């Protein structure tokens, strides 16, 4: 190799040296397709949507005023729209909370090894395949006025009149539990399996009863996982759409934000207003998520002694 060639090699190498130190080299090309995808299908449309929210339609401007902010004025001033925030919260928060809390004892019970555990787990996971639409259809038939559930209740004499279980708040809540619980259960069991059982044995040798072991060992170790589970199930419940329409009371107690957004988008073709509601949906949801994350940051998150 000639001196000149070595010299030129040297200079490129030094640039490479500097880039290498910062972790930049040719393998970063592997990221390009995913980045192009994210920019084209997520970042660009999202920014476009945010831009749209500042271009209110004429009707909105005339009715609510506020110039470029007319969409936001409409969102906060129009009770028909703004109430949907509370309606959504009233559904999503209790549903997520219930799903997480109910998952803890079930996961604790199913943590033990017994035959048929796999079958049990599979049955609990089954609703994931149902999807919201079949769940809605099933609820309408099973829990409707003439469905088996009401028939059984009346046959056992528990009630005289059929109980209204669908086309209202209860129907949507049931649907959220059926679709959300399995998900919460899967997450909680996986967090639980990450806690080394010998920790509980250790607590036992130190004289802790089952409740003390759960309260002082398992629960604190599980808490960050519960927070994550809550966030993910809340996200699922928050964007409830088909069930609110199909088994809920779409113009009343289950008039959730996604329905309002879709009404503006599909029925009124008011894309700016639809984008505004959609964006506010994201804001509200991420606010709850941020709160839970802030709480979670206060918890112990180190090793739990197991594989987790």
């Amino acid at each position: 190799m000639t001196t000149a060639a070595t010299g030129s090699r040297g200079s490129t190498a030094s640039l490479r040296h500097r880039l290498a130190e910062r972790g930049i080299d040719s393998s970063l090309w592997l990221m390009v397709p995913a980045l192009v995808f994210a920019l084209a299908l997520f970042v660009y449309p999202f920014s476009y949507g945010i831009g749209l929210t500042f271009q209110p339609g004429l009707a909105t401007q005339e009715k609510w005023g506020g110039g470029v902010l007319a969409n936001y004025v409409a969102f906060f001033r129009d009770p028909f729209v703004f109430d949907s925030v509370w309606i959504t919260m009233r559904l999503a928060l209790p549903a997520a909370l219930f799903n997480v809390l109910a998952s803890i004892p079930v996961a604790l019970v199913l943590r033990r090894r017994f035959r048929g555990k796999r079958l049990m787990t599979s049955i609990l996971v089954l609703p994931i395949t149902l999807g919201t639409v079949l769940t809605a259809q099933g609820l309408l038939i099973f829990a409707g006025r003439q469905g088996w559930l009401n028939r059984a209740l009346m046959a056992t004499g528990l009630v005289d009149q059929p109980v209204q279980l669908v086309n209202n708040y209860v129907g949507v809540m049931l649907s959220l539990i059926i679709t959300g619980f399995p998900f919460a259960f899967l997450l909680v069991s996986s967090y639980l399996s990450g806690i080394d059982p010998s920790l509980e044995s250790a607590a036992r040798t130190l004289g802790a009863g089952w409740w003390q072991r759960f309260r002082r060992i398992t629960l604190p170790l599980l808490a960050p996982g519960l927070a994550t589970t809550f966030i993910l199930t809340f996200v699922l419940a928050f964007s409830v759409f088909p069930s609110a329409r199909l088994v809920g009371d779409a113009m009343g107690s289950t008039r959730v934000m996604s329905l309002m957004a879709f009404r503006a988008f599909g029925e009124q073709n008011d894309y700016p207003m639809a984008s505004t509601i959609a964006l506010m949906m994201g804001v509200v949801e991420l606010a709850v998520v941020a709160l839970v994350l802030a709480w979670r940051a206060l918890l112990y998150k180190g090793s739990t002694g197991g594989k987790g």
Partner: protein
Amino acid sequence: MAITAGTFDSLELRGVGRSFGGHQALAGLDLTVRKGEFIALLGPSGCGKSTALNCLAGLLPLTHGEILLDGRRVDTVPSEKRGFGMVFQSYALFPHLSVAKNVAFGLHMRGLPKAEVSRRTAEAIELVKLTEHAAKLPGQLSGGQQQRVAIARAVVLEPSLVLMDEPLSNLDAKLRLDMRTEIRRLHQSLGLTTVYVTHDQEEALSLADRLVVLREGRVQQVGTPDELYDHPSNWHVADFMGYRNILPGTVVATTGGDGLRVGLGATTLTCRPVGDRPADGETVRVAVRPDDLAVVAGGEAPRDGNALEGTVVVVEYHGREFAVVVQAGDGTLLHVRTPEAPRVGDTLTLTAPAERVLVFPAALAGEATAGAEARAVAA
């Protein structure tokens, strides 16, 4: 044996360094490896020895310096084209390929004809005595067998240089001794040139022709095993070479000749300074190996007037001798080996010849920053 090592005359590392962000994992490594040498890079975890090996392998791009093979720059050559072989701590066998396919992988990558691939694969497997396991998957082998496969996979390519990254640290004690002999045997019989990374000084001393001791990314000393064992260049290397008693002291007086009087708590020892003679009143480290200390029997005079008195606190049985911990009056713990077991609570007087009591400056070489110095003193 048909497998031989690829050849070169010299491999030169010039000022090789690697930083991660602002942190220097390795800095200013200068080393010339000659053909057929067995070099061990020795140091505690985080000292930069694995970084050095990965830089040599090309798995980690350098941020400083260059590597020359017979005067030709190789640090810009990707690792797959350098023609080095490597054995990993975790064996890193391909879990989905059989032993034979693992060994043959590199030969396939070179596009060699099938007949040659199977011939050389069989030879390499025979070399590590695994012929009857050739069809098994790595998961079905014991740790020692897996490491043999890893070695076969590295040497089958007839590499000009074999790099070994703590290859024995995942094995149990007995197997480790057997594999150590095995590695040395292969190194000699195949005429390999080997760079071997370890944190185990015994392993390094027994295997290597030359040792490179690293600390915090910097070379502390390069030398043959006996050079390092008898003449460590600073207290850190001494610590690594089995000088278990490293005590802080203050120079009391420079005596005539080689000697030096150093105050240690209540007593004063005559010692041998290493490197520059420290001045009176300077803070130093005194290093003594447990086997250089001896118990003074009643009526005997301590050697060179060096006497350390203390109470026995721990006695461990180590086969032919006893490892005893003695607590001196000021609380300092001294490690000593004795052929007879004292009882806990006995008072003993220990002695060592001035020749074997080494005195080092408290600061370590290569520590430019005040922070590092402070750490060293704290340590």
